[in-house]
């Protein structure tokens, strides 16, 4: 089609659709690489400032970074913390990568496909870190057809290995073929999983064998949510797909922006009301196999010694968690995997910015230090204070702690250090829909009423309200479990 030829004629910045005609005159040479553009166009030296004595003032990257982070948090939190948002924790995601002729373009250094491969690798790691119960598969579009590159799996190794290989691109890209393939594969996954596709599209056209609108309707009916990240210009068909299926469409302006857009898809998206189904999922918690035991593992089909896990239902050996037992089909996880997903369900409120120009925090000298890291909050140069405060515990934190707490830790040290604020948080948690872990001792049958240590091998996970009714029926069996349940979730 006509896509590629147009690119050579247009400006190398042609994808920035909102540029005025006048600004094009400034770009005399179209062959500048990104580092050269930083000097000619962005003029980084102009952001330097001098103080009274003529010495250079250091560029305050910290506040810039913090401002950027706060914009991000505000856009996320405006919807999530106020309303009850259900999130899909068990996601089945296909990442579709474009290896058509357009992927060889050099506007991303060294080439679009190399940059995409690099960032998809980082994305895969981040995805499994945030969604340990989910699975990813890779699909490649090349020569007008879509092929399954790696199978849907719960471990990052196989995907990363495939991404490290030598990559080649040729031919046209076909959106319809990719959607058809993904739709076929995603039809086989269980109904409690959330079906998602992320397409990284470099081409400006699509060569389809049939009517892509029909394929889009099929995907919509199967509850597949498609999101697209474009590397060239905005296309109507991509926008249409995303609108119909409830995904998001964005265009990457440069490499850093591409990375940001990709990583935005790592945390679980809010579940679409029609797509979410509430049912119980049976999960097994395997024990580690004893040292020195020789058994044949179901994943590699070879004899292995020691280190591995035994499925609680059929006693087959698996090498890695989380996985699905190939013999009996039970989903096998360990409790830390579930615990990794809790922060999506119980997010902490963003902190409020405050500033005290004269360095006197609410008139108290003792509050001069950040509650988390004991760093002084007073700016040494100006004597003023610019910090953040938690709306619940009213403690003050420095900007770096704010970023760390919201992006990595997900606990406010101030709220956790106060006995009374815990109960308030517990009452709020009760109102949230979530997938809740419920301890139940069914299959093993070795439940002992006298012991307070409840070990279980198989347990149910399900929607809050479904479980609540089941829980009342089961609560007579174990008073201690009921008590801890009440304490954790505060009802």
């Amino acid at each position, binding site marked *: 089609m006509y896509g590629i030829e147009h690119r050579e004629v247009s400006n190398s910045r042609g994808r920035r659709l909102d540029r005025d005609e006048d600004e094009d005159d400034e770009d005399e040479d179209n062959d500048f690489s990104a580092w050269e553009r930083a000097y000619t166009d962005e003029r980084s030296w102009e952001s330097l400032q001098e103080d009274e004595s003529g010495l250079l003032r250091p560029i305050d990257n910290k506040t810039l970074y913090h401002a950027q982070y706060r914009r991000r948090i505000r856009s996320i939190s405006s919807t999530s913390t106020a309303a009850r948002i259900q999130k899909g924790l068990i996601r089945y995601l296909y990442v579709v990568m474009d290896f058509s002729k357009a992927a060889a373009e050099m506007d991303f250094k060294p080439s679009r496909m190399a940059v995409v491969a690099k960032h998809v690798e980082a994305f895969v790691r981040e995805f*499994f*870190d945030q969604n*340990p119960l989910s699975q990813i598969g890779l699909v490649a579009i090349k020569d007008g057809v879509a092929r399954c590159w790696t199978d849907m799996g719960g471990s990052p190794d196989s995907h990363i290995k495939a991404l490290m290989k030598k990559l080649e691109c040729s031919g046209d890209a076909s959106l319809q073929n990719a959607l058809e393939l993904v739709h076929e594969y995603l039809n086989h996954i269980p109904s409690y999983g959330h079906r998602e596709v992320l397409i990284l599209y470099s081409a400006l056209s699509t060569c389809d064998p049939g009517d892509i609108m029909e394929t889009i309707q099929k995907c919509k009916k199967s509850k597949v949510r498609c999101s697209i990240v474009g590397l060239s210009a905005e296309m109507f068909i991509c926008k249409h797909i995303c609108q119909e299926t409830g995904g998001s469409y964005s265009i990457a302006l440069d490499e850093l922006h591409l990375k940001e857009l990709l990583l935005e898809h790592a945390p679980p998206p809010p579940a679409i009301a029609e797509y979410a189904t509430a049912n119980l999922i049976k999960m097994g*918690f*395997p*024990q*580690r196999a004893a040292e020195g035991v020789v058994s044949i593992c179901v994943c590699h089909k070879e004899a292995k010694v020691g280190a591995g*896990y035994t499925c609680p239902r059929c006693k087959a050996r698996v090498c890695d*968690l989380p996985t699905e037992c190939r013999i009996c089909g039970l989903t096998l996880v*360990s*409790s*830390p*995997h*579930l*615990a*990794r997903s*809790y*922060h999506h369900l*119980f997010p902490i409120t963003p902190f409020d910015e405050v500033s005290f120009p004269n360095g006197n925090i609410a008139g108290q000298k003792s509050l001069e230090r*950040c*509650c*988390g*890291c*004991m*760093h002084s909050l007073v700016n040494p140069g100006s004597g003023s204070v610019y910090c953040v405060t938690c709306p619940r515990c009213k403690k003050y934190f420095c900007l*770096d*702690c704010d970023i*760390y*707490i919201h992006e*990595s*830790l*997900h*606990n*406010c*040290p*101030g709220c*956790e*250090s*106060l*006995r*009374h604020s*815990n109960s308030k948080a*517990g009452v709020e948690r009760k109102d949230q829909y979530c997938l809740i*872990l419920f*301890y139940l001792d069914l299959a093993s049958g070795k439940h002992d009423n006298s*012991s*307070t*240590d*409840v*070990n*279980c*091998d198989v*347990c149910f996970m399900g929607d809050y309200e479904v479980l609540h009714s089941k829980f009342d029926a089961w609560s007579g069996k174990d008073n*201690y*479990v009921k008590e*801890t349940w009440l*304490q*954790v979730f*505060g009802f």
Partner: protein
Amino acid sequence: MASVASKLYTDDVSLVVLSFVNSILLFNQLNQVVIIATGFNTCGYIYDSSLSSVASSISANLSSGDAKMPGFCSEVLKNLEEFMDNDESLSSVDAVNGVGSSLFSGSLSMALCYIQRVFRSGPLHPQPRILCLHGSPDGPEQYVAVMNSIFSAQRSMASYITGGVYLKPQQLDGLFQYLSEVHTASKPVGVDFRASSVYGRAQSDASSASGQKRKDPS
């Protein structure tokens, strides 16, 4: 180079801990120790070795009558007294029967924020370690917060497993020996991966000093 944050409990244990902290500081001059106390109602920093200068420790040594104790001990004990008074005063009227759970997740979060700050400030990256001396039972309402802290620790230390060791000493008299052993040689022992109740574990009999620890398998 190592920076260690530890939590203190009773006066009996504090003497042992003080000698242990002293031994860490003597081990390597670049070692830093931060002590965080976990109470029933609050958590707080008790001591930070990077803040106290040599001059102040010498002057404190001269002023204290007992020339055998290093300078920082009096500072630690004083701060600890203040902390415990503050904590008791914040208790509500109806006292808890038996031993209540402490705010473990709070002090763990504070320790992690401190370690992040150390990573950020300077080109040198020390090997951070957290030592938790835990006397009270686990509080189930803190399960989510503690797990969040553990996963964050795993990520920021750029290692897949925190590599910690869990030890339940049978005799508190031998605590100093236990601590030194754990600090110098830490090889994790067998782990239990089942979804066993976090809540019940601390109340089970202290019959085994086995190194059982909930370790993340990823």
